[in-house]
Structure formats: C-alpha cells, structure tokens
C-alpha cells in the first residue's frame, strides 16, 4: 500500500500492549527515572502477553491506530513460562494478515524487556514512533468512506 508523502508534522497514534510483569515494571521504572518517550502512545495492560489476541491487534488498526506493538518479558523469563512465546507467534501471524489486508505488517512489532530495562522500554516507544512516522498514517484514514462499517469488534464479549 502506497502511503501519502511523509508529513513531518505527523504524530503517530500507537497502541501498545504490555504485560503486567516485566513490561509494566519497566514502564514504571521509566516514569520514576523521568525517561522521556512519545506521549501519543496509548497503553493497554494485559495480565501476560500470552493474552494477546489477533482480534485485539486488528481492532487497534481498524479503530485508527497508525501502529501497534507488544512489550513482554524477555524470552525465557515470562512469568507465565511461555506466554511471550505464544504472543510472538501470534504477532507473526498478525503481521502476515496485515500484509494481506494491505495495511502492512511493518506497522506491528514486539519488544522484550526485563523489569529494570526502563531505557529499553522507552526506546521501543521511540523506535516504533519513528518507524510509523516514516510509514505515514494508517492507510485506512485516507479511505474513510460512508456508510462507515458498522460492526465493531466487541472486546467485552464473553468469548474474548
């Protein structure tokens, strides 16, 4: 999908999913250390990144996110043993799906940090923001047509 020319004023909206263990601790530590990272990132906390669902990621893009990423414990150190490995497999599948859809799998990524790696947490936010800035806005934004697609994914469903 060919995007619009890069607009230097474009500030990406990014949805980040992070686990309640290492990634949350790293986020907390980043705050305590006053480490700066882009303010346009919206965080969604998960009990473990193993809870990530392809539907959550697609919903982020469908609802207008320019990019999305997942932050997990380092591989081998997941508090639920293999939750982050499962998340990684789903991220790979979702990237392929985003390519098929035409949004582009490069708008999605996954990062691994330990609880003390506040700088790595902030760097993930910065690098994703920079990448999305290069890619430009979510192509769906240029093609908002009426009637708007009416059926939204209800993340409160019991099945989710």
């Amino acid at each position: 999908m060919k995007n619009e020319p890069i607009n230097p004023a474009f500030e990406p909206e990014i949805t980040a999913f992070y686990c309640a263990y290492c990634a949350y601790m790293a986020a907390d530590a980043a705050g305590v250390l006053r480490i700066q990272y882009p303010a346009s990132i919206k965080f969604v906390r998960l009990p473990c990144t193993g809870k990530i669902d392809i539907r959550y990621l697609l919903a982020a893009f469908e609802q207008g996110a320019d990019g999305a990423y997942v932050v997990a414990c380092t591989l081998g150190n997941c508090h639920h043993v293999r939750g982050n490995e499962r998340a990684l497999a789903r991220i790979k599948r979702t990237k392929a799906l985003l390519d098929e859809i035409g949004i582009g799998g490069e708008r999605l990524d996954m990062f691994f940090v330990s609880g003390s790696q506040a700088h790595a947490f902030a760097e993930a936010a910065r690098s994703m923001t920079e990448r999305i800035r290069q890619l430009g806005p979510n192509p769906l934004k240029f093609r908002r047509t009426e009637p708007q697609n009416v059926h939204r994914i209800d993340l409160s469903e019991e099945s989710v």
Partner: protein
Amino acid sequence: MIVAEQKKLDEIRGSVSGARKILIVGCGTCVTVCFAGGAQEAAILASSIRMANQLDGQTCEVADVTVQRQCEWEYLDELADQINGADAIVSLACGVGVQAIAERFPNAWVVPGLNTAFIGMPTEQGIWEERCAACGDCLLGITGGICPIARCSKSLLNGPCGGSEAGHCEIDPNIPCAWQLIHDRLEKLGKLELLLEVQPPKNWQKARDGGPRKVIREDLRLTHKE
C-alpha cells in the same frame, strides 16, 4: 474432527465482491477446535474484510455470527433473519455447513471461507493429521487401531509396498509408513498372527465410490409430525 483451513483473504473477498452486506457465519464445532472457522476466526475475517474493502474504496457492512453447528437445521434457523438480510454469506464451516445454508435458505448466496481438508486429530498443538478416510467399512480391528486406508499413501490392505524405507513412506519421508506402524504395534501386542489373514479386495462401494452415502435409522425417525 473435520479439519479445515481458511482460504486466502483475496479469494474470499473475490467470491463476495460487489456485495454490500456480508455475513460471516462461523461454526462452533469441528472448525472451532481446529481454529479455522470458530467465533474467533469469524471475527478476524470480518475485521480483515472490512479493512481490506475500505482500503479498496468499497463500502460494505460486514458482520459475523457463530452457531453451535452449521450442519443442523435447528441451529441455522436461528440465523434466518440475518442470512436473508445479507447479500452474501461466507460460511466458515466445513463443506457440509456451506451446503446446509444453501439448502435451508434457497435465496442466500453462500460461499465457502474454508477448504475442508480431512477427518483427523491434533497430534500436538498446532498440528493436525489425517486419521480416517470414512471408507464405510472399518478394519481397524485387524490392523491394531492404525488405519491403512487413511495413513498408507496407497491404502494397501496386505502389508507395505516396496517404497517403505526405514519406517517411512516413499511419498514423503516425513510420513511414517502406516504398515510399519501396524506391524510394530501388533508385534508389541503379541498379535502379529492377525496379519497372516490375507485381506480380499476392499468393497469400495461403501466408500465414496458407491456414490453419495446415506444412513437411515428407523428407530430414530419421527413417525408423525410433532
């Protein structure tokens, strides 16, 4: 279970192109447990079609719904209003479910979202293997519970062919030779003598070769309208 795989997004979109109201119908039985066409996959497909269509400048509504079993009338009847109100239905069931919708709703345009693959089982998480060919005349009792019809590439009945090499099939070295498995298992069970009986040519009329099949159980049929 019936094992299926989802078709590529482009193929599915192509089969419903032009429709302004699309209904994705998932099935809550076999294809849910093989992660091909359950509620989760129906929601993912609906979201994917919505986004892809929007990128192509097409305006359409895409909704998804999942029933317990698409292959039974009573579950399909719940969907009558939604199906009749849609321009196109994408069935995420096996081929039975697609045909059930077509038969129950004569005016509905229904297309398959899955390729029905085989009758099998998950041998480990994420891997499904064929186990039954629905041949209509089960002989697992004489082959140690390992099916030579479904698992031997040549469906042989009296031992392996010359292509069995180190316990693997000549068709694909990743496929274990069914007759090696049968021999090893019967040997462990001390029942190798079962293999001494020569099996006559199989009556394939009970399989698909005899035409579409039908099972009738008079004891279960309704004798009057209820």
